């Protein structure tokens, strides 16, 4: 993470709103070249809106403020045309539902090869040969036949591999994957993740993995940012954050996961659950948005919003959890 090297992406004070509600309320993070960051959060946390803002693909009526530095430019200031020449080339994205995300009336091979032709200017035959090669790399069977298939004719896992092939076709600097396996059958999820993991690594691309699923982040990322109600509440190396979470929300999320340990207690075991519910964006509580659900909430939490990085702790919390080691030392 040397500062001399340019970052794959650098986001500063990103705000996304549509006039009525603000879905992303001041988010900053940096992903170095080849770095892998996980963005974890529940519905309404603003994680998907963050991804769409980076791509410049927000739905009509939504606006972006702040800076998104990528490949030497600030994407926020770019026109749709300028952005479009980067999308799919230096910056690309894999979406959640591969069936609805592929054009239903075009053959999958054509969909991939048109991306190659658009960005590399390769002629049709070259692009088609590259497409076959890509499909092989995606561990898909019978590439020559598969290119002629329509999206509805292939399985969900195959479709998502096609999506990944499209996103990786031009060796992007950064690939954003938004819940790429949520719509897939459980037994296929891991294969697709493994494929995505390897293919991203082979290309040296950076990865921004967006999910509500903590184990996926643990498996694929080196950094994690935890979002709640439009803000990052904790950020840091995965090993550190997941082993010693400082924010009570991160702790709660980790405790909510059924694991082998929970099961081992069989029957009598209980998951520690986070009480209450995720607040809707249009009626957020004052102060820390998590305070109504937080076991450590104080008056200060109800009045003033904590910032990330106070006291050198990468958790936006007035009463951060003490790491186990420090507690012992006291």
């Amino acid at each position, binding site marked *: 993470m040397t500062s001399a090297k340019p970052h794959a992406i650098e986001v500063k004070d990103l705000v996304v709103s549509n006039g009525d509600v603000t879905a992303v309320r001041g988010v900053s993070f940096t992903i170095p070249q080849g770095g892998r960051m996980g963005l974890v959060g529940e519905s309404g946390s603003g994680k998907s809106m963050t991804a769409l803002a980076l791509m410049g693909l927000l739905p*009509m009526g939504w606006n972006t403020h702040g800076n998104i530095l990528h490949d030497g430019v600030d994407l926020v200031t770019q026109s749709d045309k300028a952005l479009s020449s980067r999308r799919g080339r230096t910056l690309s994205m894999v979406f959640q539902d591969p069936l609805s995300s592929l054009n239903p009336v075009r053959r999958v091979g054509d969909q991939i090869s048109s991306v190659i032709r*658009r960005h590399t200017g390769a002629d049709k035959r070259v692009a088609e040969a590259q497409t076959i090669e890509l499909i092989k790399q995606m561990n898909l069977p019978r590439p020559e036949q598969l290119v002629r298939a*329509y999206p509805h004719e292939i399985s969900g896992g195959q479709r998502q591999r096609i999506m990944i092939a499209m996103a990786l076709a031009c060796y992007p600097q950064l690939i954003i994957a938004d819940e790429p396996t949520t719509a897939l059958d459980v037994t296929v999820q891991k294969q697709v993740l493994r494929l995505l993991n390897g293919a991203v690594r082979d290309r040296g691309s950076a990865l921004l993995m967006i999910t509500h699923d903590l184990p996926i982040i643990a498996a694929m990322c080196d950094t994690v940012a935890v979002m709640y109600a439009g803000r990052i509440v904790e950020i840091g190396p995965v090993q550190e954050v997941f082993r010693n979470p400082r924010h009570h929300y991160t702790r709660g999320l980790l405790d909510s996961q059924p694991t082998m340990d929970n099961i081992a207690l069989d029957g009598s075991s209980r998951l520690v659950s986070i009480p209450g519910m995720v607040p809707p964006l249009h009626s957020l509580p004052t102060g820390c948005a998590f305070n109504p659900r937080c076991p450590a909430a104080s008056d200060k939490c109800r009045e003033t919003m904590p910032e990330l990085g106070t006291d050198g702790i990468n958790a936006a919390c007035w009463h951060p959890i003490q790491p186990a080691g420090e507690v012992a030392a006291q």
Partner: protein
Amino acid sequence: MAIYALRKLAFFLGAVFVASLAIFILIRAAGGNVAAIVLGKDATAEAINALAHAYGLDQPLPVQYFNWITNMLQGDLGQSFRTKESVADLVTARLSVSVPLALSGLLLGLIIAIPVGTYAARNVGKPSGAVLALISQIGIAVPVFWAGILLSVLFGVKLGWLPTGGWVDWRESPIGAIRSLVLPVLSLGLIMAAVLIRYVRSAVLDVMNQDYVRTARAVGMTRTQALLSVGLRNAALPIVTIVGLQIAELIGGTVIIEMVFSLPGLSRMILANVAAREVIVVQSTVMLIIIFVIFVNFVVDLLYGVLDPRVRNAA
């Protein structure tokens, strides 16, 4: 695709059969003693029976229906009671007016509606989009005959550019024929366009919100490119469906427009024959129109199969 096409063909034939039965029952069974009506109050019983016998009207209804259908299949549409003219000849003469009118009207409607509707969808939420939506709303509220009247007042009476009515036969003067069709086609096409703009707009809006359009943009298309190359191709599916449904509306509009501009088309003929109780003429002509509409819908269904791989595979 073969199974899909066969299914649709079966439906087409079934629909024609059911429609013919409905028409026959409606006109013949509900119409009373046709021969008596045709000949009027003063006719003698012998004359009525003779006419009924001559046209096979004294046979049982199922037999009459069977004869009618088999004759139609052989191209014999029957003949008029009064003039003894063959319905086929009557109809053919009228088609040279009605068919160009209806098709040009539809074409004009589409030529206007597709770009305007797409533009309105692109600019939804902006003043230009709202104005177009409002114009379309107003256009839908305008009765097609009033549009005809307004246009002929403007271009015929005030400006004197075009005839306000009447017909010059194609063989006499093709230019004259075209001149007599301009205003009718314009009235029909504009009102058609108003209705279609609405559908095109909502079809395009719907498609633009689909994930695959977002994907197209995510791999490097601008908003406009995605709209034109991915959006329109997919929006074609609902639009084709609507055009199929609008064919019936189009025929209705043609009927009225022929009246407004005194064109000697098929509808005027039906109207006159309705008044004269020429049952066989009405029955056969109406059947022809319905076969035409059902056929267009059959073609639309086939087109749908061609456009959408999901449909043809589902069979």
